[in-house]
């Protein structure tokens, strides 16, 4: 599904990703772990199309098509979704209206009519229940005044609504208490099918107790220095990152 080939990228003159290779197949969950500054967030930003970063070399291929020339919205239409570490607040635009705008933008790009209001409402009800969201959050301004946990839950709600092929969860566990973490992880697990894939980017192993990865990769200094199964996460938790350097 996703194939990252010798990806080098940076910001201004600073090279951050120094040759990343990664293959993600449908139905898989990959975890990318690494210390601060290793390039985790840069990787998720480059995949989702953040123009702050410049791609220097290599390619990112989604379903046999290079996506590097696509804008972030076009990538979203192709099925990429990123859950942000720091979701932004948009006063005056309710979560409901925001998600409607997003879904209908995607449908428009696919040449479809707007989703009928009735179907939209039904979908919103189902997905918000899945994440045990209080409905009143949906009529509030997007993320405005939300706690860290509420924001993250809202991210996964958006993911549920947009039904991406590839979801990247960037430090989704940061700022979450254990109850919120369980709900968010449970939501991700319920959304998982044999046809979609998830990349979990995290500093800590904690989230991986709830979202069990098929593969764990260690990112250090812009390169994947070790890959393994889920047991690698436990090893990192016990030993830290230093033994790998």
């Amino acid at each position, binding site marked *: 599904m996703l194939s990252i080939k010798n990806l080098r990228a940076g910001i201004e003159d600073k090279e951050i990703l120094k040759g990343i290779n990664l293959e993600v197949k449908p139905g898989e969950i990959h975890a990318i772990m690494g210390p601060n500054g290793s390039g985790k967030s840069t990787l998720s930003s480059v995949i989702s199309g953040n123009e702050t970063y410049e791609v220097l070399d290599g390619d990112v291929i989604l379903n046999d098509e290079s996506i590097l020339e696509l804008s972030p919205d076009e990538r*979203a239409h192709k099925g*990429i979704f990123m859950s942000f570490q720091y979701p932004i607040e948009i006063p005056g635009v309710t979560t409901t209206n925001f998600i409607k705008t997003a879904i*209908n933008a995607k449908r428009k790009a696919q040449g479809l009519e707007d989703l009928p209001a009735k179907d939209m409402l039904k979908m919103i009800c189902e997905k918000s229940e899945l994440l045990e969201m209080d409905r009143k959050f949906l009529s509030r301004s997007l993320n405005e005044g939300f706690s860290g946990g509420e924001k993250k839950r809202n991210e996964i709600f958006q993911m549920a609504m947009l039904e991406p092929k590839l979801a990247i969860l960037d430090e989704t566990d940061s700022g979450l208490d254990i109850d919120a973490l369980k709900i968010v992880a449970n939501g991700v697990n319920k959304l998982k099918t044999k046809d979609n894939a998830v990349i979990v980017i995290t500093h800590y192993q904690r989230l991986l107790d709830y979202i069990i990865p098929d593969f764990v990769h260690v990112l250090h200094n812009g390169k994947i220095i070790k890959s393994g199964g889920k047991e690698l996460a436990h090893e990192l938790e016990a030993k830290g990152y230093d033994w790998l350097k």
Partner: protein
Amino acid sequence: MKLKEKLVASFMAFENKGNIDLDSSVHELRTEAIEIFEKQGFPTKKDEEWKYTSLNSILKEDYSVFPKSGATVELKDVKKYFLHEIESYKIVFIDGVYSSFLSDTTHEGADICLLSSALKRPKYKMVIDHYFGTIASKKESLTALNTAFSKEGAFINIPKNTVLPKPIQIIYFSTGTEKEIILQPRNLVIVGENSHAQIYERHQSLNDNVVLTNAVTEIFAHKRAIIDFYKVQNDKKTASLIDNTYVQQKENSIVSVNTFSFGGKLTRNNLEFYHQGEYITSNLNGITIIGNKQHVDNHTLVNHKFENCESHELYKGIYDDASTGVFNGKVIVDKEAQKTNAFQQNNNVLIGDKASINAKPQLEIFADDVKCSHGCTIGQLDESALFYLQSRGIPKKEAKALLLFAFGNDVVEKIKIPALKSRISILIAEKLKVEMGFEM
């Protein structure tokens, strides 16, 4: 003949035509005012207060000073300019002439009617003598010009202990039967002790002929009165507006003036607040969203003269294309005005490459026990926010519009008439040229 000379020469004819008592105090005010205007003329960029706004381009037109009456408009053609979905009082003018057909005035429990009749009728003489022309600047030449030609406009006199059951709409239409026209409406608003009024004001031209409106509004708020005043400026590209608003407040009163500047060729707002008592709250809010070569200038003044008063000022501006904006917010805290809370914020986003804003917060504080703050920002859209929206599949253009909508939202949130709030939201969405998919 130049416009100034034409106006001065027309003055005598105006007074004779006006059919008013030439012994009245208003006659004296007018005569003084035309002399001041004659002496000063129109302001130029040499005047400190007009440094960034030039009237040259609008003064060269050959305006007709006396509109021909008799133009009619069909309700269906102008309905959209009203808040038609709610009950309201209406005071409507067509080319400066009162339209009884479109209006819905009252004398029951409050006077919501015409200034021309208040100026003429003996029963209003005391009120007119007491209020009219007392806070409008006698020195400022455009206000003086309006005073000289003051004859028609809204007269709102609400006695004490009266909460109006519905808002008041004051709408000035210009039909363009004259190729170029200058209109000088004059409003007088008096709200008595403990009374409450909501007012919506709009100047609207109905075709593309040139119109210059030089309006003056005097607002008096008595003790504990609450006034919410909304100015919607969304006129055609050939219309210019100079809007002068003077507010006087007694103790414990709350007056909010909200200005929405979305249209017109040139708009200049002068908004001035004067306090006469303690525990007064003055709120000044505004959103400007313009493009092309439009120009909007907001000049505000709050003069704190008494202890324990507050002023809150929030102006937002979005400037596209080669549009230009001015924000000049002056706050004066006199030595006696201890325990004043004065806040001022002005945030601007420039989205056009050639757009510009001249922002000048001006605080003059002579008291020592006060809380005053001001903040002024000029920026572009937050790239990380833009990326967030795009990553959800929303194309860049719409994502920008959503962020701009959000940027202006805290001013929209202050609107207390729900029908107007949704109207303004729709107008903003239209101005930003996107379908937002909002449910209003």
